[in-house]
């Protein structure tokens, strides 16, 4: 059995005072301190990050972490665009499956605000195919295409999408570490400027800095002695074409479906058992598609179901989604998101979620996507 | 006999009206229109250049005939707004058209007569047996300094001509060229906008060289203006071609169809050739067409063309095609021309 025994996250936001590795250091030291661990007790580190190569000209981050913590153990970096964090976690869990008695760290981090929006948008386009980049399709453009198809096929409007942002901003107001802490209205969303039609600024997750880290172990004794312990029931990765045009259906993310099916099978539980979930809402449409593709909602019904706001904290729904504020309000420092999502489920299951604590949750799910759906990671945790 | 096998033209979709420009600079629009005889001009989009326009006109020319592209061994690209100062656009064009690789290519420059000069050289190469066909393009995204008269006239467009020796729509019966060193209009390397000598561009330049070239050709061929159904001259504005035609002895009826400058502006190396496009829409078998292109710096190439009955099967609609247009305002014009 594999366990998560600790979680620390920096604030997400425009963290001008901190460089990428300042953030990495803060998260690593933070999680070690919380668990009363010395860096010498760590057997391996897994690091998820997307843009350090493109924006910072750093492609040996693993060695940089060794320098920071003054350790010599194996350190690995994963690359999967926005799913880098989730994939790092998956690789860490697989490492635990293969190596007994390990205490390991998984950290995701991203520094995005040192650069102009154009440079960052260009950097994020690295998640898209060369042809998509050449056609001037930004990352938002790809999700905008999916939104357009979805809206047209199921006869929804931009208003349906806006409910996602409103819900997640409300959650963000309950999360001290979130990038955005203010609530917004449907009108606010509909009146915000377009980024790529029909997606507007308030349909889109922001450019944020941040780092999040978790401690994993497969040592039963250590796990039992920790104040907070959660069991990793499943972590599955699935991939698909990098090009949106290569997918079988352009308005669904098949990789999500495949990863979810594998994860639920492994965990031996059903969709109804999940009480709290962190899904990948890089854009409002993405949360709707995620709910459908993960199997929580029927295909095509997402636009209607989101309006019920049953997944919003405080509405007594059976499944509360994105209590952290999601990517939209908590922020989306790309490589950190996958870990933050898992960390949020950890907080919920161990009753540490304070103002946004969902009651009586036994199982939680985290869903992390790379690019327009080229990679998906689904993780199921239980207590 | 060498001549035109097929032809193609391309005019960008956008137009800006003379009055829109005049109003920006506080000039009386009617005065400007009256003095230049230009109501509007073409503007190429921000992502168009002489090469992309040449591809359109050349594709059109090649679509009219079933030519084995490996037999097109001459590709010449005439422009004043070449995409590069050093790098042949002729090979970029040829490659996109699927012409490869045993061919001669080069880019030509002689202000507005870069393409007609190339026509003359190419027909010589065909006559010598080097190639069965030659593809010649005149293509420009004409620049004019803001608040200058060129702003009203400099336009965008492209014309492509496929020369050959069989199955011609128009024979090139004869030609002549007249050259001198006359600095009426020029552009230094690295400088964005051309400069010109004002009124000096008239009598000692445009008129002197067209006159010299035309009269030389009349003498050589024994022909005179009355023998021609149509006459086409380079059109830097709407007045000069009318004046030079008249001074040579052509009637207004002979040149009226060619005066595309009135509603398209002056597309530099494509200017006279665009006038030819308008005329070919109307010309009949056996018609003689007089074509004289002028290039600043300066020189003039004149041609006697005779229309064959093949024009009928390859004739292209011109007047209707150019009606597909969209008017833009001044800031959009500046954006498309990358002035801002």
């Amino acid at each position, binding site marked *: 059995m594999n366990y998560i025994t600790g979680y620390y996250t920096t604030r997400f936001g425009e963290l001008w005072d901190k460089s990428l590795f300042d953030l990495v250091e803060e998260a690593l030291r933070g999680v070690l301190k919380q668990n009363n661990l010395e860096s010498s007790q760590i057997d391996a580190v897994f690091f998820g990050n997307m843009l350090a190569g493109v924006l910072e000209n750093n492609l040996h981050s693993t060695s940089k972490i060794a320098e920071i913590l003054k350790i010599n153990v194996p350190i690995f970096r994963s690359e999967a665009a926005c799913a880098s964090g989730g994939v790092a976690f998956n690789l860490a869990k697989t490492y635990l499956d293969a190596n007994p008695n390990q205490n390991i760290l998984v950290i995701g981090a991203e520094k995005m605000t040192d650069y102009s929006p154009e440079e960052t948008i260009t950097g994020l386009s690295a998640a898209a195919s060369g042809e998509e980049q050449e056609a*001037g399709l930004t990352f938002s453009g790809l999700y905008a295409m999916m939104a357009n198809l979805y809206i047209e096929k199921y006869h929804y409007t931009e208003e349906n999408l806006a409910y996602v942002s409103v819900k997640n901003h409300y959650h963000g107001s309950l999360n001290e570490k979130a990038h955005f802490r203010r609530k917004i209205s449907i009108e606010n969303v509909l009146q915000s400027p377009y980024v790529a039609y029909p997606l507007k600024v308030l349909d889109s997750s922001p450019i944020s800095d941040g780092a999040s880290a978790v401690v994993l172990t497969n040592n039963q004794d250590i796990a039992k002695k920790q104040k907070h312990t959660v069991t990793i029931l499943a972590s599955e990765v699935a991939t698909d074409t990098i090009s949106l045009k290569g997918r079988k259906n352009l308005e669904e993310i098949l990789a999500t479906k495949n990863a979810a099916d594998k994860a639920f099978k492994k965990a031996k539980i059903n969709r109804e058992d999940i009480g709290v979930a962190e899904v990948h809402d890089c854009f409002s449409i993405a949360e709707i598609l995620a709910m459908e593709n993960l199997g929580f909602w029927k295909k095509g019904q997402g636009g209607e179901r989101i309006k019920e706001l049953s997944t919003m904290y405080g509405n007594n729904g059976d499944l509360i989604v994105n209590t952290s504020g999601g990517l939209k309000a908590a922020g989306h420092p790309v490589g950190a998101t996958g870990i933050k999502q898992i960390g949020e489920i950890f907080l919920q299951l161990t009753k540490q979620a304070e103002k946004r604590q969902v009651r009586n949750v036994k199982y939680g799910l985290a869903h992390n996507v790379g690019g327009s759906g080229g990679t998906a990671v689904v993780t199921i945790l239980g207590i | 006999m060498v001549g035109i096998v097929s032809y193609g033209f391309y005019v960008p979709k956008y137009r800006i009206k003379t009055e829109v420009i005049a109003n920006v600079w506080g000039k009386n629009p009617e005065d400007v229109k009256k003095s230049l005889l230009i109501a509007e001009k073409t503007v190429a989009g921000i992502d168009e250049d002489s090469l992309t326009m040449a591809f359109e006109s050349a594709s059109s020319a090649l679509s009219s005939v079933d030519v084995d592209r490996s037999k097109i061994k001459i590709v010449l690209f005439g422009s004043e707004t070449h995409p590069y100062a050093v790098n042949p656009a002729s090979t970029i064009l040829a490659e996109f058209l699927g012409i490869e690789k045993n061919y001669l290519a080069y880019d030509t420059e002689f202000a507005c007569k870069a393409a007609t000069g190339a026509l003359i050289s190419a027909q010589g190469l065909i006559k010598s047996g080097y190639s069965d066909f030659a593809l010649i393009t005149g293509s420009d995204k004409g620049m004019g300094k803001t608040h200058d008269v060129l702003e009203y006239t400099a336009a965008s467009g492209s014309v492509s001509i496929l020369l050959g020796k069989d199955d011609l729509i128009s024979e090139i019966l004869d030609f002549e060229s007249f050259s001198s060193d006359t600095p009426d209009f020029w552009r230094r390397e690295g400088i964005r906008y051309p400069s010109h000598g004002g009124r000096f561009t008239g009598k000692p330049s445009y008129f002197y060289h067209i006159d010299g070239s035309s009269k030389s050709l009349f003498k050589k061929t024994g022909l005179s203006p009355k023998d021609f159904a149509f006459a086409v001259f380079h059109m830097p504005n709407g007045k000069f071609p009318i004046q030079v035609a008249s001074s040579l002895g052509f009637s207004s009826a002979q040149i009226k169809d060619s005066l595309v400058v009135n509603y398209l502006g002056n597309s530099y190396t494509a200017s006279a050739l665009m006038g030819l496009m308008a005329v070919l829409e109307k010309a009949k078998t056996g018609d003689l067409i007089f074509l004289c292109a002028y290039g600043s710096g300066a020189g003039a190439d004149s041609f006697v063309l005779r229309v064959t009955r093949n024009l009928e099967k390859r004739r292209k609609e011109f007047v209707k095609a150019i009606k597909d247009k969209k008017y833009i305002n001044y800031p959009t014009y500046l954006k498309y021309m990358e002035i801002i």
Partner: protein
Amino acid sequence: MISPIKIWRRQKEIRKILGKKGKVLVWTKIYMAGSDFKKYAPYPVVLVELENKEKIYGQLVDYRDTDLKIGKEVISILRKVRSSTDEGVIAYGVKFKPL
């Protein structure tokens, strides 16, 4: 500066898809663009299915807003596709215009 070799390799592929007709499968309009495309913004991008079933992305140009719809017939044309530096090789590529 974009690699001239990448442009050269790409142009060989572009040649094959010029002058082809197709239908718009999905479209969007980009308002916030990356560095290379900033000066063209806002611009529509379409995913087109050509007559031979091949799918191609490209900007839509010379359009009216009413042309932005799923199913619209378009044709592929040659245009400059991204703004390189003043010194770099010019990148020509495929865009679409409505039929």
